[in-house]
């Protein structure tokens, strides 16, 4: 009287639907990873090109180089990587991309530092270390403060690094500034290390004072 075959067939159909859903999910997931990869490649090319340009022309090229500000793209990439890490299953691929991203940040940091001293461009740099290994509510707050500051001061460059990332270049940075995992979040402003949470007003004052950065009016702030 009970049609067991039907119960089984429906089960198999449901399993097939699940497999199809996971196939489609994988397909789009991979598309996203590809998109991230191509953004990264583009950034890498841009950095390399700026670097080469700078080496070729030295000081005389300052005018051209200051126009090639890349941090916007780097920011977007960072946001997407973070979202992908929180909302997808492909964490391995994402963490690989994150390493690449950290490396690009360091390269951009070194290049921009060179450019800013060479061309006497007013700019400020913050290296920011956080952790994702444990629940770090202060890190989340610090990230908010930094994104807010970065929007206000387009010439402020913030480079964020995951403390627990397995990348020797980042580990070297950690060694240089003697940053410990117990003191996260940690910030580096012009070789000065700040640990723990720092509020927006405090950081803003530091950015303005120490780096003599003027608050740009909205009309000229968009480059």
């Amino acid at each position, binding site marked *: *009287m*009970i049609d067991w075959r*039907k*119960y089984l*067939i*429906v*089960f198999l*159909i*449901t399993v097939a*639907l*699940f497999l*199809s*859903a*996971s196939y*489609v*999910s994988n397909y*789009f*997931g991979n598309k*996203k990873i590809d*998109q991230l990869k191509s953004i990264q490649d583009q950034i890498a090319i841009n950095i390399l090109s700026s670097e080469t340009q700078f080496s070729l022309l030295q000081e005389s090229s300052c005018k051209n180089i200051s126009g090639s500000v890349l941090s916007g793209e780097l920011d977007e990439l960072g946001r*997407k990587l973070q*979202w992908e890490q929180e*909302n*997808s*299953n492909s964490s391995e691929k994402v963490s690989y991309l994150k390493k690449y991203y950290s490396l690009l940040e360091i390269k951009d940091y070194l290049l921009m530092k060179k450019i800013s001293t060479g061309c006497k461009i007013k700019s400020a740099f913050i290296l920011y270390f956080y952790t994702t290994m444990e629940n770090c*509510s202060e890190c*989340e*707050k610090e990230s*908010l*403060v930094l994104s*807010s500051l970065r*929007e*206000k001061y387009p010439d402020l460059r913030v480079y964020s690094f995951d403390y627990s990332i397995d990348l020797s270049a980042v580990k070297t940075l950690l060694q240089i500034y003697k940053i410990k995992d117990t003191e996260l979040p940690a910030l580096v402003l012009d070789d000065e290390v700040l640990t723990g949470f720092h*509020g*927006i007003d405090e950081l803003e004052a530091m950015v303005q004072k120490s780096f003599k950065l003027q608050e740009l009016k909205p009309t000229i702030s968009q480059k």
Partner: protein
Amino acid sequence: MASITTAIFYVFIFLSVYVQVFFFVTFLENRKKIVTRKGTIKLGYYPAVTIVVPCFNEEKTVEQTVFSLLNLNYPKDKLKIFLINDGSTDKTWEIINKFTDNPSVKVFHKENGGKYTALNLALENTETEFFGGLDADSYADPESLIRIMSYFQKDPSIMAVAPSVTVYDPKNMIQNAQKAEYHMGVYLKKMLDFLGAINVTPGPLTIFRKKVFDDLGYYRHGHNTEDMEIAYRMQKNRYKIEHCNDAYIYTSAPMTVKKLYKQRLRWIYGFINNTLDYRDVLFKKKYGNFALFTLPVGVASILSVIYLFSRIIYNFGNYLYSKFVILNTLGWHFITKISNFDLFFINVQSFSFLVILIYFLVIFAMILGRKMTEGKWGLSFGMVYFFPVFSIIAPFWLLSAVYNTILNRRPTWR
């Protein structure tokens, strides 16, 4: 912890997809058997039927209900109409007394005792082979009874036939949402019919062989859902219940959220408690798909709604907390950046696609149900209203039905 909740989430999604596919496969198997008749039909013979209208404070609707019965396309001498005033405190008694001149109509008055007592009084006085009720807020289509009776003639083993209930003259969003839901109900009921697993013989014009009550006893309180209890009892005794999809009954659906909430709370409470009363039936294969499909699906859907609802509340709480943190960290003067819409931020995990699939199957069920009742293909506004109205309110009546059950049953657990 996160992986456990994700696993539970996927289990519920799996069950939802399974159930929807099960109905869909049932539909594909039986689609040729769904007959929607138009116009009048003739029967070989016309057995006598008693239809009872239990009334408790129904002054606004009862008159039209009785007119709809008098208007049925069925030989007048074969139709007995019992109007039972169950201790109404309004003008119901006056109104039903207007019909005493009609030879088919008999009126009764009794102390208020609940709907099942009114039905039982009618059963005591029933001398016909067939018996049915019609709620005093519902109206029968003229062809409904004759179509139902044709089922009994085609198969003598059928013990009860339920009609297709739909919403009478929906006016607002709440009623239109219910109309879409009732359409889906018609489709699901027909599928349960094919599975031999109907679990409600609704108050509006389900017709029984009187034998059912002689064999199994009269109506019981059934946690205020006597029309569910009798169906459970019939299923337990393997009495066949069918659904006549082209017998239409129009019922006055609750107009406000509050009334809808109260009605559904009663239904869900009835479902939970009747299922608990008949728990020995669950998963026993001798009781067929009723025990293996209908009841487990009902229980699983209550659990999944509660789970999803807590998940949504949790996520919403998280969202509020994150906004609070932003406010707390940056103060009121923080800059809100209007980020451009980016396809990248669409979630492409498997569940997104499965949820979309479930929505499609639900909409498909509503469209088929609409086709079966109104004869029209296509989407209606009610279907658009259905999702917001039911997904917002349903968790509350479910939770409160569960809560009431735990509260009421507590003494028996000691």
